[in-house]
């Protein structure tokens, strides 16, 4: 279980408060969707969860353990996949699996077994000896996903995982996420596709202007806002919590 308490992140360089106050609870064996408009602070929150960024204040606990004090242990238990993350293009999927498996201290036997399983599932097996940089976007994404999941992480953090992928690859990834959920893994999804949230997520967290404004089940979301759909609830929450001042300020007015 992941507990986030009053998380805050201010970037020193440009003094931007990307995350102002985020508190969430994410449980094992569920798909948790993190929603919010562009620039709300979702990616920054996920980067802090994955230890890529240090919070300015606030706490993150993984199964009761402070993330900052146990960052190496936490990194060995999580996977984080975004579109920004790539693999070395000169290597084949086989070589990449050996390398990353080694970094996670997996034995060669464990690596081989996981590699075969994941490569077969994502249809990479036949390309396992081809250089990564010769792959199509979809194949690269699938390879990245397979490598990310190689060490069998407990928590999987996906920042818009199906962006730019064809419908078949999207479906393949969605099915795999459901499979992981069945295995009791904790999956955190950041997405703009509310339809995907309705189909897959168990619980939802909404961030607006760096603040968490909702955390509950998918069913509770429309109910809590007195509307019928997730879309309507999301828009209502956004309008109620969005700081107009911030936008006015950006245009240089009072």
């Amino acid at each position, binding site marked *: 279980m992941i507990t986030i308490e009053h998380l805050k992140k201010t*970037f*020193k*360089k440009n003094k931007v408060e990307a995350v102002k106050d985020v508190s969430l609870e994410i449980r094992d064996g569920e798909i948790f969707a993190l929603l919010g408009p562009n620039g709300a602070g979702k990616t920054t929150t996920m*980067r802090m969860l*994955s*230890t*890529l*960024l*240090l919070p300015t204040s606030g706490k993150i606990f993984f199964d009761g353990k402070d993330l900052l004090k146990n960052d*190496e*242990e936490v*990194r*060995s238990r*999580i*996977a*984080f996949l975004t579109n*920004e*993350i*790539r*693999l*070395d*293009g*000169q*290597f084949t999927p086989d*070589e990449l699996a050996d*390398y*990353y498996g*080694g*970094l*996670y*201290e997996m034995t060669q036997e464990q690596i081989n077994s996981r590699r075969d399983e994941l490569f077969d599932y994502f249809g990479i097996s036949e390309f396992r000896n081809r250089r990564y940089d010769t792959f199509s976007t979809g194949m690269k994404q699938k390879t990245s996903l397979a*490598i*990310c999941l190689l060490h069998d992480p407990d928590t999987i953090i996906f920042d818009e995982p199906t962006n730019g992928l064809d419908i078949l690859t999207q479906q393949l990834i969605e099915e795999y996420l459901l499979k992981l959920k069945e295995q009791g893994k904790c999956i955190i999804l950041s997405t703009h596709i509310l339809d995907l949230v309705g189909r897959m997520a168990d619980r939802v967290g909404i961030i607006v202007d760096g603040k968490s404004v909702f955390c509950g089940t998918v069913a509770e979301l429309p109910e809590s806002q007195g509307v019928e759909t997730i879309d309507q609830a999301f828009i209502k929450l956004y309008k109620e919590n969005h700081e107009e001042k911030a936008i006015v300020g950006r245009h240089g007015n009072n």
Partner: protein
Amino acid sequence: MRGVGKIFHHEMQKILKEKSLLFGFILLPVLTLFVTVGISMLRPKTSGENVDSYSMFFYGLEIDSYNIGALDDKQIWIKKVDENPADFVLSDDFHHSDVLVDFSDVEHVTIYYYESNSVSSYLKMSAEAFVRESFDTAYKGQVTGASFRSVELTDINEKDTTNRMIAMLLPYMLILPLTANIANFASDTIAGDKARGTFYQVMLSPVPPLSLIMGKIFSVSLISLVSSAVYIGIDILGSRICEAAGVKDVFGFAGVSVSMSQILLILLYAVLLCYLFSNLGVLISLFCKDQNQAQTAQIPVTLVCTLASMMSMFRFGTSPSSHYLIPVYNICLIFQDLLNARAKMDNMLMVAISLLVLAVGVLILTLASYKSEKVRT
């Protein structure tokens, strides 16, 4: 240090898989062999008339068959030279305008410097200018200081002069390609990874930051050292080929004769130097977003190091102990001392310790920087 071997292995594989890098840093130097040999065979023009053959040891460089031009009034100088036309040593307070001598009627004159001579570097480097200027001044009847005297040859002998050339050039020959190589490889290893998006995947692994940084530093050090060794080897090989072919190069290359202990000590210091430079390169690379930015940021380091190595080329005699504390310059001095067989243990230790301390300092700074926002965003 968990995972350092894996990072190192992966980085080395990455470099070895990049054919263009290999070509530029390993194969290209081999191709320069032909250029080295070609340059070595270049010889100054002779006019055919009024040319007298003489040879001159010029801080270990022998220049012969040189056209020194005609001179009408030779009386004074011939007389002086007649005292002992074979060998001369210049005094410590020697300055080129003080010595005006016409060698044009002398078949063979050899000039030796004392190592402690504080003569201007310009003079030592430019034999042609020296000879011509001296003659011009003599011809015009200007100051004739003429402290030209026959002196016994003491500390200068064939063995001593053997490594003079390589000792003078080695720091430059080593540091120039080394800094250029490290700037390139270090820029690629982190800033390049960031630009390609591959750095974050490694940062997400449970490998401790120290292992990640050290793995990258070791790979940059090794490949840069190998590449630089190829450059130096090719330069020496070029001269050897000339020597074997019976052709002396423009400087009359004095040859190389080094013992195994000298080679090992030079290698040890080269490794230390590589490690220090790689640390610096990785630190700079850590703060840059892509290779271009990193390579631009490395330029000042490359320039300063090249300048330090060039300065050492104009150093003659022994240097004060304080010079052995100046980073980069100190290692140039040690290379020269080792090749000239005059390295002192206290200086060697001082240089080794100062390099290590500096490298560890940079490593600590790199580790502290690893957690900064600029590196991670």
